[in-house]
């Protein structure tokens, strides 16, 4: 029997007349890395937000780490974490202060020790006493990642984790995810536009378009199925409604 970190059943999110997520169902096996792929407005962030519990679905079921997210969200949240370049940490607090606040929020037993550990892991030693608002994009990403791994989450959700990073830093960040997953067996779910990232990191890809999951499978499987060489070409086929032509 497969153990699932996430089970989604007939999930719908409607804003008035707009159907943002249209009756999607999927599972994410524990210990896997899965990508939600899709163009702007495909419903990736909306889906991720519902999985995190900050957005309530119009209908459907979400089970995260064995708990019903709609009724027992607070049992799950200490075991989950999240990172997005679009959500900031307080700018005026130093990196150390920010990490201390979140260490307490996640009820970590020895916060100072844990902060020292993630600081070592993400090379934050020189940044700890600097205000979070004065960091470069790459430094901010490392701090956000340190915050996201403070509680050593069983499930890590990432919204475009390498957006606006230079290739070197982006590569470093991807290595961090792989390293973290190898050590802990955690499940990773990421929403991304970056096909290289998806090909490198993911065991499974859920391709979304107009609120629906239009295809899914391992990256190589999708590439073969569409008769293409890269995930980027697969993505373009789907985005431009060429999937049937390609598949034939």
């Amino acid at each position, binding site marked *: 029997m497969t153990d699932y970190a996430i089970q989604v059943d007939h999930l719908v999110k409607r804003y008035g007349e707009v159907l943002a997520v249209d009756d999607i169902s999927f599972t994410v096996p524990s210990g896997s890395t899965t990508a939600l792929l899709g163009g702007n407005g495909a419903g990736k962030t909306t889906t991720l937000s519902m999985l995190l519990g900050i957005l309530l679905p119009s209908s459907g079921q979400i089970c995260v780490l064995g708990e019903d997210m709609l009724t027992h969200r607070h049992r799950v949240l200490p075991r989950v974490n999240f990172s*997005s370049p679009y959500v900031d*940490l*307080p700018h005026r607090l130093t990196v150390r202060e920010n990490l201390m606040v*979140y260490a307490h929020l*996640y009820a970590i037993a020895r916060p100072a020790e844990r902060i020292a550990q993630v600081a070592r892991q993400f*090379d934050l030693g020189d940044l700890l006493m600097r205000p979070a608002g004065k960091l470069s994009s790459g430094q901010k990403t490392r701090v956000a990642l340190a915050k996201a791994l403070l509680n050593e989450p069983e499930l890590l959700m990432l919204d475009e984790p390498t957006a606006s990073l230079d290739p070197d830093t982006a590569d470093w960040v991807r290595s961090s995810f792989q390293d973290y997953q190898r050590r*802990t067996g955690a499940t990773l779910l990421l929403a991304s536009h970056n096909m290289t990232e998806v090909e490198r990191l993911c065991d499974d890809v859920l391709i979304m378009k107009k609120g629906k999951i239009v295809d899914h499978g391992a990256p190589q499987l999708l590439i073969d199925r569409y008769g293409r060489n890269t995930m980027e070409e697969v993505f373009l086929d789907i985005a431009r409604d060429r999937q049937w032509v390609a598949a034939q």
Partner: protein
Amino acid sequence: MGGGPVTVPAAASVTLAAPSLFSWRRVYALVLRHVYLLRGSWARLAEMIYWPLLNVVIWGFFSQFFAGHSDWVARASGVLLGAVMLWDVLFRSNLGVALSFLEEMWSRNLGHLSVSPLRPIELVVAMLIMSLIRSVLGLAPAILLAIPLYHYSLFSLGPPLLLFLFNLMVTGWAVGLAVAALVLRYGLGAESLAWVLVLGIAPLCGIYYPLSALPDWLQAVAWFLPPSHIFEGMRTVMFDHVFPLQEMVIGLLENAIAMLAAGAVFLRVYHVARVKGLFLSMGE
């Protein structure tokens, strides 16, 4: 970057506390966040102290002038200065709650907080504690300065002062929570409500004049506002030297209703924010 992340043998190194319905540690975390902010920002601290101090200085001279020209003020020296300080307790406690919430919105941190284990009720409790801290820090210098400068001590009100302070803080908390709910619902475009909403009730609270100065129909409205009972009570203590038991009981009851209503509104809006996706689109 070079070399990739450093591997730290951290598996099973993080011990988390069991999930709980209410956690003082999470409240502490949020209070700590605001204490860090204040500690690192002299401008915020100065602003907190500056306005109450300025108010007391202006009204102190005003009171001294009126003491020589008004029997009413002369009968109870400090009636105006006391009123100014007590009104500032209400105003600052409202601002303490509202600003603590606005700080989260200004720093775009609400997204992180809302996916953390922090519960809405813990957010509310943390905002109330921060309001208390901000009010004490902001008002203490002004209250203490009035003693040598105008020979008026707010503490001369005696034990009833504790009830006055408590009641006014609760009213401020209720208004502050209502402001936080409105800002969460309608975005940062509504942030000025933190300063102006509470001023809307000021004319009806009888801060500087007895409620009998209002038209009869307006007096009927004013009695439904908890601060009206507190300011009337303050004058009873100052002029008649009597403990205003009835005023205090009614004030406490009205405050309990106001606080429960404001808390319920805030928690309801928090739920609406999750339905409408407001945590995803913070801004104006």
